[in-house]
């Protein structure tokens, strides 16, 4: 009871997502161990940590993508706008409309550029061609891709460059008008120029969206995020304002990791 009321009062603050004691097991492997974290609305929260530390698992919990993995067990609570996403009345399909996701490897559908962006809205029942065109244009503009490809919307998305494909995937996620955008190492497969574009984009998107980004790139976390959370071996070691995490971390492990002295 006490937890519930404290959660309720937490929810009244500016946190968009509240995570409490989130534990995830794959079979007998403990992937996340009692992680509690607040994610601020219209802020960029970076999740850093070595491979296998659970940051991607954490991310995939926020839109319940882990539900599809065989043998997964999830305990603890995740509240978005004060509502538990594991509540039996919450439809995971509806949840994912509100919590969009961009993956590490760009994964456009083997369809036209237009059909890629229009996929989500169509699935959610938008049939009107004019409305779809508006959504596609708006989303591509938001993803800073419109000017580059506005003349070839009917071409295959697979003909785009890697960086363009990733921005297309961002546009596709934005087209369903989510509140939250989860990004799983969105720039790790891109060259520095394409990476810079994605980072610029994140900066602009945070005026409207709550963004959670997983990254292996320290500089990237430092550049794009407001808050940084350091994960290690399935536990949340430290979370705080990005500047503080990188210049004056509270824990020795965090300092070792962000300064590259991680052993």
């Amino acid at each position, binding site marked *: 009871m006490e937890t519930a009321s404290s959660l309720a009062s937490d929810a009244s603050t500016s946190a968009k997502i509240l995570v409490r004691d989130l534990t995830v097991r794959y079979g007998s492997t403990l992937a996340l161990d009692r992680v509690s974290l607040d994610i601020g609305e219209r802020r960029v929260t970076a999740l850093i940590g070595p491979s296998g530390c659970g940051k991607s698992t954490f991310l995939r919990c926020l*839109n319940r*993508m882990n539900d*599809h993995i*065989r043998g997964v067990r999830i305990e603890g609570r995740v509240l978005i706008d004060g509502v538990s996403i594991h509540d039996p009345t919450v439809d995971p*399909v*509806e*949840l*994912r*409309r509100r919590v*969009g*996701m961009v*993956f590490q*490897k760009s*994964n*456009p*559908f*083997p*369809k036209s550029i237009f059909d890629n962006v229009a*996929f*989500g809205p169509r*699935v*959610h029942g938008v049939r009107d061609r004019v409305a779809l065109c508006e959504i596609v244009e708006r989303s591509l503009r938001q993803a800073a891709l419109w000017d580059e490809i506005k003349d070839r919307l009917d071409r295959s998305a*697979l003909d785009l460059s890697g960086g363009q494909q990733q921005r297309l*995937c961002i546009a*596709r*996620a934005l087209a*369903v008008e989510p509140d939250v955008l989860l990004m799983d190492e969105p720039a790790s497969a891109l060259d520095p120029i394409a990476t810079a574009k994605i980072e610029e984009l994140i900066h602009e998107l945070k005026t409207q969206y709550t963004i959670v980004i997983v990254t292996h790139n320290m500089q990237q976390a430092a550049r794009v995020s407001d808050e940084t959370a350091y994960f290690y071996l399935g536990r949340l070691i430290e979370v705080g304002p990005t500047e503080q995490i990188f210049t004056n971390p509270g824990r020795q492990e965090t300092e070792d990791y962000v300064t590259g002295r991680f052993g």
Partner: protein
Amino acid sequence: MTGTRSTNGRYARRRRVERIMFGATVAATASALGVLLFLLGYLVWQGAGALSLDFFTRLPTPVGEAGGGMANALVGSAKLLLVAAAVGVPIGFLGGVYLAEYEGGPVAFVVRYAADVLNGVPSIVIGITVYGLLVVPLGHFSTLAGGFALGLLMIPVALRTTEEFLRLVPDSLRDASLALGAPHWVTIVRVVIPAGMRGILTGLLLSLARVAGETAPLLFTALSNRFWSPGWLQPTASLPVMIFTYAISPYEDWHRQAWAAALVLLVLVLGANVVARLAFGGRSAAQA
């Protein structure tokens, strides 16, 4: 010095082995290709002479009367394949979707195993089974029974190729669709199946081409017919059975017709293969 020489010796030996093994693989490839070319060449040599417009447009003539064709067998084979596709494609395709997208547990293992066993069942056994299932109750041989037997033969190949090609569709596409809030079935219908469609169509066409040449199951089910076979419930001629009948006959003229029919059958099957590869074999979704 010694070390260098022994290294050289080993190098020379390795090159010898390499040459022999390379030669063996080339020879094996050439023989495989050679068999096909020999077959095709021999059929053209033996059968092309009997090919004429009549062959494709006329009915067989009575024994002793020259000329005539196999129009009824061509149409019969087409109708048999139509029935076969109607039986084999939906079952194979939907079963493949089920295996690839819904079930990974013991049920899938049993179904896969059963499909492989069915694939290994001699086609004549399928023929006898359908004889008991359809021919006896209906009272006569028919296109329906023949096509049904061919359809049963198609199922395992159609099922497994559908499953394999759906598995080639990368999970990242499924993730992308699910993350956009698409339900599972929408993801399958709008993303996974379209992405694997080229491969699936190729597989289905090839499985159809494969049963097009089956003879044994037709002997008990479609039998044969010297005349047109109207509707679906009469015995019907078909190319493979016609080849069989004509080839074992004592008449020189029929032998030539059998060669011609064999040539036509082979060209049709090869043609289906080529069409399948050209039309659907291009860029596959697996590259996405």
